[in-house]
């Protein structure tokens, strides 16, 4: 019974992890500019993520090591340090973007500009980590996250042309704006395949004390949860394609994005969008701050658990405190969160090989995983992901310059 409950919560959690400012903005921009054409990128990103998340959970459940533990042990400190620097810079940018997303949501509701929200929002996020337990954060954020289902409701209410949607699931190259198209595809993939989600998930498996008996549950959560999240993202894209594209509205700023659901749900669309954004970004901000703190604590072998009193794992608590303080600064200065989002998505793509290649080694380690290590199917999938990640790493920078 307990496991069934955990299963349900796990699925919802992964939804919370999937939908955040990055996936919403990239999907909305893609839909507003290219209609259904970029749906395939969300599909591909979701498929990759399902496999990566399943593997992250399996590694933790079997070896009782998180990805970061295992990476430090196998690859040594110098390599770990390189990954640490890359991961922290990008995760920090994403954190700034998420806090900005919450601020924007509050701005369109109240009219008070988002820089004013930087301090209160960061404080609330910090307070939850400081006082709250892991399950409170995991389950609270995810249950509230159900409000994002309104994106799917809106998509259905606009009666999309299903054959068009289906053809969007097959990659195509447009006649014009090739660079912009490519840039958005890369950003969508960067928003979906985010390594911090893997680190957070594998730490969560340790926090929840998973063992081998959780392997089927893990598979189920990864499969259904990520699919659910992917469908939500697709919902955003479809709504943008139907509500904004015909009018020629591009999603460059948040006030434009706020109009997303006003056609489908005239009465509540605006408020549902604001609520969805606030909740989704809030959940993501918590997950990213914790992922950064986990990364340090596990890599250096400190005590860590979100359930401990801060002074019992002081360095862990110190990391998330500092990181959330620092993240408020760019917002106070009025840095545009959407620009930060787009930049961090492309950078995620550019540094993806750094996260995925070591992961392939770990998932084949007989000492950690024994008979639960990757079979040839999973390995081929990771090989394909690595291939994609190298292509992304090579093209993301030129595309950012030409299409960003």
């Amino acid at each position, binding site marked *: 019974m307990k496991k069934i409950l955990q299963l349900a919560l796990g699925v919802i959690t992964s939804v919370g992890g999937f939908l955040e400012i990055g996936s919403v903005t990239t999907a909305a921009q893609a839909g507003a500019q290219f209609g259904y054409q970029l749906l395939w990128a969300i599909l591909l990103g979701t498929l990759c993520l399902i496999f990566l998340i399943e593997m992250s959970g399996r590694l933790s459940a079997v070896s009782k090591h998180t990805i970061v533990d295992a990476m430090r042990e196998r690859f040594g400190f110098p390599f770990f340090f390189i990954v640490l620097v890359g991961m922290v810079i990008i995760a920090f940018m994403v954190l700034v973007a998420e806090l900005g997303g919450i601020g924007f949501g509050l701005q369109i509701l109240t009219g008070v500009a988002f820089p004013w929200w930087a301090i209160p929002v960061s404080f609330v996020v910090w307070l939850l980590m400081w006082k709250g337990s892991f399950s409170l954060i995991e389950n609270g954020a995810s249950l509230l996250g159900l409000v994002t289902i309104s994106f799917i409701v809106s998509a259905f209410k606009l009666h999309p042309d299903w054959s068009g949607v289906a053809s969007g699931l097959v990659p195509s190259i447009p006649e014009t704006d090739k660079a912009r198209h490519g840039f958005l595809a890369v950003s969508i993939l960067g928003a979906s395949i985010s390594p911090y989600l893997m680190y957070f998930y594998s730490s969560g498996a340790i926090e929840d004390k998973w063992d081998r008996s959780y392997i089927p549950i893990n598979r189920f959560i990864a499969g259904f949860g990520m699919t659910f999240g992917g469908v939500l993202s697709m919902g955003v894209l479809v709504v943008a394609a139907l509500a904004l594209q015909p009018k020629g509205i591009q999603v460059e700023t948040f006030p434009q994005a706020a109009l997303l659901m006003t056609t489908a749900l005239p009465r509540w669309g*605006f408020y549902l969008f604001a609520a969805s954004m606030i909740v989704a970004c809030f959940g993501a901000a918590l997950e990213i701050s914790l992922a950064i703190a986990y990364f340090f604590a596990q890599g250096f072998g400190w005590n860590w658990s979100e359930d401990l009193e801060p002074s019992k794992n002081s360095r862990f608590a110190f990391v998330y405190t500092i990181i959330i303080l620092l993240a408020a600064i760019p917002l106070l200065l009025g840095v545009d969160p959407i620009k930060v989002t787009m930049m961090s998505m492309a950078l995620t793509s550019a540094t993806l090989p750094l996260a995925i290649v070591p992961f392939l080694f770990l998932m084949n380690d007989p000492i950690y995983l024994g008979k639960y290590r990757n079979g040839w199917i999973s390995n081929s999938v990771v090989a394909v992901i690595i291939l994609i990640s190298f292509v992304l790493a090579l093209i993301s920078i030129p595309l950012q310059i030409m299409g960003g």
Partner: protein
Amino acid sequence: MKRSFALPLLFVLACKPPTPAEQMDAVVSWVSTAGMAGDAWLRHTTPDNYTRQALQLSNQQLLEIGTELRKSPPPAIDGATLDSVLTRSRFHIAQMARLVEEKNAPDFKTQLDSLRTDQRLVKQLSDSVESTQ
């Protein structure tokens, strides 16, 4: 490692300037944004503050793009026509932003309807720029 530090800088520095067609797309986008925000406000489904801010933002964006366009107008269209339609749209949008504050829905609707006319014109201009590309 050095790469990861240099990258963000590179991003900020290097973004190629928009083409005339992209600028016209942006004009369409902002005029439509104002129209859509106006519609939503008339239905009483968005807060006054948001509507005013959205209108002011699109007014300001149109001003910026308009200045750029005046410096290097797209060859396919008449610069004077574009200029006048931009000025008119911005006038309507500014009026709408003011009327939101006064909660004057009837006058707001009149301005919105005029904006619609300009919106169609802007779309035509943008299409003709696109077709000559």
